[in-house]
């Protein structure tokens, strides 16, 4: 790649996937890709993780869907998407023609929906891996989020891994007491790795009107406010399960933030909300990462994975 000083290697391996650099898009924060191609060359990215698609089209929730909170934001979009078939027909061909791996995100309400989605995307040209968004209510279990239960996690992930040979990443919610236990269940069910973390469930109230700021009442918290939670969650999974492929997600904006999540144990880092605050956040993080390595006499970003030291002894 041009502009990389000799000897600096930004590439990383996420299981069988080789990425040219560790910075990828967070699901739901990059639309179809065309919108952002107006601002920068998508080949700058390590990979594109696409908006979660469902079996049938989803209209999404009514607005207001967004409320800004201290160094973060709440969103309740309701997975608005055209459905997997329309996505394959309309968005995937364009993405597949870009010089960047595509990781397709899927979301279901039942175990069988996950299986059908995996079947639909298996052997479709242009997809390098699947990210399985299991931070979704399981309608067969009173709406309890799949990723809140080890059993439901294993069931949804097995449904996918037994249907396709594509690498599979299970996207976990931080709203659990033992995220490493959920990650273990996903890996046992055949997942290649885990994506950590999805948004935290939150709520904001307009105290003048006494109403929730979001039409849906509650929503997912993202942005810099959640970064320490993401770093903690990634590190817990890394410590408990050893060097497994982890896509670290949550509040990353700068190259330093990317390095922090990598040191905690992430093999790649997804950037979401930061793109909303600055369309050029991702290319700037990639450039900054290159400079950070140079300044620290580091040769390869992969060497930093899990490189956090123990706390200073007192």
């Amino acid at each position, binding site marked *: 790649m041009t502009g990389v000083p000799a000897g600096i290697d930004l590439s990383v391996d996420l299981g069988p996937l080789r990425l040219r650099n560790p910075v990828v898009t967070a699901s739901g924060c990059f639309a179809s890709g065309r919108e952002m191609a107006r601002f920068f060359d998508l080949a700058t990215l390590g990979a594109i993780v696409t908006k979660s698609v469902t079996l049938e089209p989803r209209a999404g929730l009514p*607005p207001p869907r967004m409320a800004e909170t201290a160094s973060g934001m709440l969103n309740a979009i309701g997975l608005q998407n055209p459905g997997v078939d329309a996505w394959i027909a309309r968005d995937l061909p364009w993405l597949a023609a870009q010089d960047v791996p595509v990781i397709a995100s899927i979301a279901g309400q039942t175990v069988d929906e996950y299986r059908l989605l995996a079947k639909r995307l298996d052997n479709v040209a242009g997809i390098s891996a699947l990210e399985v968004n299991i931070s979704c209510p399981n309608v067969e279990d009173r709406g309890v989020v799949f990723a809140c239960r080890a059993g439901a996690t294993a069931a949804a992930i097995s449904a996918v891994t037994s249907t396709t040979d594509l690498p599979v990443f299970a996207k976990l919610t931080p709203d659990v007491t033992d995220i490493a236990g959920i990650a273990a269940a996903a890996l046992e069910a055949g997942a290649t790795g885990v994506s950590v973390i999805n948004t935290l469930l939150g709520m904001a109230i307009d105290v003048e009107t006494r109403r929730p700021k979001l039409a849906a009442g509650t929503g997912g918290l993202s942005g810099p406010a959640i970064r320490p939670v993401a770093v903690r969650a990634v590190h817990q999974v890394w410590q408990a399960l050893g060097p497994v492929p982890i896509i670290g997600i949550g509040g990353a904006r700068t190259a330093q933030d990317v390095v922090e999540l990598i040191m905690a144990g992430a093999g790649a880092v997804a950037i979401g909300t930061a793109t909303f605050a600055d*369309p050029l956040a991702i290319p700037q993080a990639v450039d900054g990462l290159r400079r950070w390595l140079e300044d620290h006499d580091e040769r390869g970003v992969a060497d930093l994975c899990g490189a956090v030291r123990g706390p200073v002894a007192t």
Partner: protein
Amino acid sequence: MTATATATVRSTTATLVGRRRAAAYHVCSFSAPDIVAAATPGQFVSVSVGAPGTLLRRPFAVAGVDVAAGILDLVIAVVGEGTAWLVGQPVSTVLAMTGPLGRGFVMPVTSARCVLVGGGYGVAALEWLGQLLVSRGHVVELLSGAATVRALYPVSRLDTGTASVIETTEDGSRGHAGLVTDVLDERLTGDDTAVFACGPMPMLAAVARIAAGRGRPCQVAVEEHMGCSVGVCMTCVVPTTDGYTRACIDGPVMDASRIAWDHVRGGSS
């Protein structure tokens, strides 16, 4: 004809070069030549704000441009932390700015009587639109409404033979007492009349209803809470006959007949 989606959009910096008050509003002028060169009335920019704890950019309609000088004006109402911070910045402050964003108003192709209906700061962008319409030979009538005289945006650049301005205030402190929509219907009798509106959503809903009742074409600039302003976060959606559509990229100017007004907050009669 559809307005071009912003192929020429830039994510750049802008320098604050001037500030003044206009009634209850703050007019902030920014030097941003790349954005100015491509902007049309109805389009907007997003601006970074530095208030503690704020994260997202704030969207504002482009209220006018000086193409030669590379300067654009934003007319800002202070409603919260971000807008308060913005209007408190000294001249020569440099901010991140992305624009021009979204679709602007589509100009009529044949000679038309253009009725422009604005509420609050929405009037500012319409004043610019009005100037362009006049320069292309159209007759322009601008209806400007607000709650009180202080919130009435002062129009000063539509002082020509083919343009007129009618003001309304809800409390009667200036012009016609009542809503701007009270005086709209009687102005839509001509076959060649086209309606352009910019203001709060309930006002747009009323304008759309009246225009539809008279069978007149109507374009509205919608507003909804925005996250990214560039089409990727799916938060600023507006209900249309075709489902939820992003205001930032498929709007903010939309054909009023596309919008499912009964599903807009404050939009049903």
